């Protein structure tokens, strides 16, 4: 059975005038967790967003595939199919500001699954609110809620879609330790259900809980994927906070 979800092959990009990253290859398998490691933080961010198909600028199409489909395909239907199963969680927990929290949570869900039973979805949302310690903010606008809650809501929104792959830009960014703990537990549960993760993170707890492999990218060198059993993984893990 083919378990490969995302495949990046021969990707090159430039971060600034001095830094060139060339010929990056790696693939993401179903149900596994991957952390991108790079000294240049901008490079790992660009790589993550490129893999998500969110950076149209400097990249040429045909380098990144999700289940064999080009993530930069000009075909809207194909993109919709990809986005149904591949979700991106932004660092700031971005939400649509003129929609309520509930409308925000339902937006991608109803777009991809118009016949969703709202009552069942609401029950799932209430459960997740409880799990992540979010007060009932369903009817509030994003501007009225805290950054922490917004960030946690982004995970709930992602999970509602029941994706195969979640890409995360610094999942624990700016969260305090108790919130971090809740989020890690939540993501671990998702992983147990078979969700794969590709993320940029410098958090040790994320690495311990979610990462099966790390993807190391260095300027001018091919990307290296290192598994948990590899001594290099343990060495790297010590550098995480």
């Amino acid at each position: 059975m083919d378990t490969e979800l995302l495949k990046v092959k021969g990707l090159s990009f430039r971060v600034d005038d001095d830094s060139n990253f060339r010929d990056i290859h790696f693939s993401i398998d179903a149900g596994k967790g991957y952390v991108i490691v790079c000294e240049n933080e901008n490079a790992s961010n660009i790589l993550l967003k490129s893999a998500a198909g969110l950076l149209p600028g400097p990249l040429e199409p045909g380098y990144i595939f999700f289940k064999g489909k080009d993530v930069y395909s000009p075909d809207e239907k194909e993109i919709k199919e990809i986005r149904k199963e591949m979700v991106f969680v932004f660092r700031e927990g971005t939400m649509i500001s003129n929609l309520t929290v509930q409308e925000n949570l339902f937006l991608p869900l109803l777009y991809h699954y118009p016949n969703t039973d709202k009552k069942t979805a609401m029950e799932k949302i209430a459960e997740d609110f409880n799990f992540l310690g979010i007060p009932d903010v369903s009817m509030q606008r994003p501007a009225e809620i805290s950054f922490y809650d917004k960030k946690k809501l982004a995970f709930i929104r992602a999970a509602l879609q029941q994706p195969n792959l979640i890409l995360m830009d610094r999942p624990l960014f700016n969260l305090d330790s108790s919130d971090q703990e809740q989020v890690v537990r939540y993501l671990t549960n998702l992983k147990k259900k078979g969700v794969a993760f590709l993320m940029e993170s410098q958090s040790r707890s994320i690495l311990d809980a979610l990462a099966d492999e790390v993807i190391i990218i260095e300027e001018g060198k091919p990307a290296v994927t290192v598994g948990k059993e590899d001594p290099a993984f343990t060495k790297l893990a010590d550098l995480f906070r």
Partner: protein
Amino acid sequence: MSDNKNSRFGILSLTAHQYRNSFKNILEFYLYSISVLTRFFSIPRKGGVSRLVLFRQILFTGCDALALMGFIAISTSALVILEVHQIMGQLGEGGLIHELIVVIVIRQLSSLFVALVVIARSGAAISTELGNMVVHQEIDLLHSFGISPLSYLVIPRVVGVVVSVLTLTLYFNFIAIVGGALFANFFYGMPVFNFIHQVIREMSFLDLLSPVIKSFLFGLAIGLISCFQGLKVKGASTEVPQRAIHSVVNSVMATVVLNIFVTLLEFL
């Protein structure tokens, strides 16, 4: 001397740069308008996520402006009656009042006034809202959902503005006629139903069609320009008010030019 030469070249190069930018903007707007117009009637579908955006746009642009439009309609009609009655009464042509209400208010001013109010209220609001969405990465968020910002944000807004301008123009004309009749009755003792009957009698098919065509075109221009300017924001919040100003200025210019163009066509 050489300084003068340099500054002259500086001005020239700046002008060339501005021309290049203007040309690029026009081309971008043209391509964007084509993309919007090709999808104009396909979206928002029943059950689609953009339906809510459409309803909210009609509520804000159309329904919320009813009181203001009614006030402007009555005032305009009253002013025209007042002026025409004074001038034409002196010339012994008081009967022209109904014809002039049709020509000035219904054919010319109704769609223009509605367009100007919609530009001031909604055009600026749309470009500011979309500009802020760009700044706060909300457009990227929509991309990450696989939702096209054109389908979700632009088309419902353009359709909403077109529907609102059309409806508001019809409402403006209705209020202008009824309000004008009440004003004429109150100040000059003209019977209300007789006044309305006379105005309707003076109306030709073209008088009815003209404001409809104009308001459709004005709504389209306002919607397209406002969304385009909002989405042109690159990432700095300081660009948002600048784009809102561009949106208002360009929409006013487009409305005036379209008004002249359609009026000229009427006389061909």
